[in-house]
């Protein structure tokens, strides 16, 4: 769990150009700030694919829209 979260935090900051992740990172979702719109979400998911060497289906790309969604997904595989 922590492992996933830490790695996600790094990707998150990189994709959204943040110096460090927000507090209660785990509760964040699409739309919580300007950069995390649908395009931002897509960018984020493609970077996650690369980092975790996984591949989301078209459906998953549309459904995974929050940090908790993504963590749940990563834990399940």
């Amino acid at each position, binding site marked *: 769990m922590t492992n996933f979260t830490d790695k996600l935090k790094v990707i998150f900051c990189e994709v959204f150009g943040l110096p460090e992740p927000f507090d209660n990172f785990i509760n964040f979702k699409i739309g919580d700030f300007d950069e995390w719109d649908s395009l931002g979400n897509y960018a984020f998911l493609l970077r996650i694919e690369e980092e975790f060497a996984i591949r989301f*289906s078209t459906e998953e790309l549309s459904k995974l829209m929050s940090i908790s969604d993504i963590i749940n997904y990563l834990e399940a595989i």
Partner: protein
Amino acid sequence: MSRENLIIAGSSFLLPFHPDWKTLEKSYQVSFAEFGNILKTLNEDNFDDVLAIILILEDIIDFNEDDSKIIDSKLALVFESIELRVSNSRKSTIIIPVSVTQQNVVDEAKYESLEISTYRKLTNSLRDIANKYTGFYLIDSSLFYLKHSKEAIFDNRNWYFSHSRFSLTGISLLITGINDVLNRTKAPASKVLVLDCDNTLWGGVIGEDLITGITLGEDGLGKAFQDFQKEIKRLLNRGVLICLASKNNERDVWEVFSNHRGMILKKDDISHWRINWNAKSTNLIEISADLGLSLDSFVFWDDSPIEREEVTSQLKNVKVVEVPKNIEDWPQILRNLSCFTKFEITNEDIEKNKQYKNLTKFNLEFKKALDRKSFLNSIEMEMETHILAADNLRRAEQLSLKTNQFNLRKQRYSSSEIQQINSLDQSVIELVSLRDRFGDHGTIAMLGLTKIENSVFFLNTFLLSCRAIGREVEVWMMKRIKSKCLELNAHTLYAEFVKTEKNQIADNFLESQGFAKVTEYNSIFQKLSKLHIGIDGILYILKLENK
């Protein structure tokens, strides 16, 4: 100076969030045109911006619906729009045509499919445009498939999810291609390859193994060394100067060059050398001084990690190739070194080895001469000017990109910009070639005049290759400019000197030629900026007297 704009236009979505796009932001202000509308971007007023187009054939042609007539008319529209831009823009235009359809080998075994023949038509016509216009560059996407499979480059899921044909890997390849081409439009290729000999040009140590014991030619590793030499020869033919820095007895090395049947390189191919027991860095410095070429245009290749480390630590500007242990990979690695890549081989490149040999002969005698002035008078120097033409345009670009020392301004003009300047009313661009009794030194200088208004001109270019410095060619050139101005009925000539870290030698030159600093700037600044001439340095004026 502000960064140039670079517009990226795709016939479909190009994942603008890809982190690699940022690599282009070091030199350019990058923006993305509305995707899916390349023709619109091509027809917009963006002639002052660099443009990179990614054109996916299947985005503009529907192979199930369009018949060959429609296909031809769609392609014709693309070509027309491109020609309109490239004939009007002074900035570079890059195109990457791509086809995503995967054909079956059986279907293609007898007759070519419409998809493949159309793609061929597209790339052939673009190639013709690239040959015709110097500022237009074609990136052949089939070269990408040598690095990655089509499956890795394209991504069907991304297509249906976001209208992007590409995977992140595919986008990376596009960016690398664009970056490589744009870099070369702004910075010249490396000029000199310095090689070790033992275990580099041949296997073994000549001092110990003798000529009969070294590995070269025949099969196996000997063949790999020979292929490596063939790649060196290829670079030589493309204008790279080949030099040796070897710890050996000089006689032993030349014995291999003269008498080993496996040698591809001949002594005559080597522009300069230092074969002794000194540190390689010292030898590189000496070679650089003798050739009059700065070390940042040097590439060093040595099998020994210790020698490479010594050069790296002493000479930060030299590019030291990380040579792998496997000799078998060397020919390919040398071929792929991006520092030597060029758009075109000029006549100057082909003659370069000979010209530098003439130059080193000159330098040697020049150093020994007691009275330099009378020495220069005795060597039958002959300068000749040439107007800008198709066969010297690339050389003009090379000179503009490469000349640092005797260069009054720091503007770097690409060939299309040079053409543009030359096409202005009453503008003059001339190239200067030099001969003396040591031989032909090739095209060594460029001068350019732009008309500001009636009888008033601006010296937009005045540069002299480092290999002709110290011969007072610049004085001759200034005389030439003055007489050219009088021919054009000019009474006033403006010139700019921009001081850089490298052009101290040109400091005070304008004063010595009768120019005075301009004190009243405003009106002349405005006139120059209308002509897109920005002044970053000191502006000078010369009043010409009509006789």
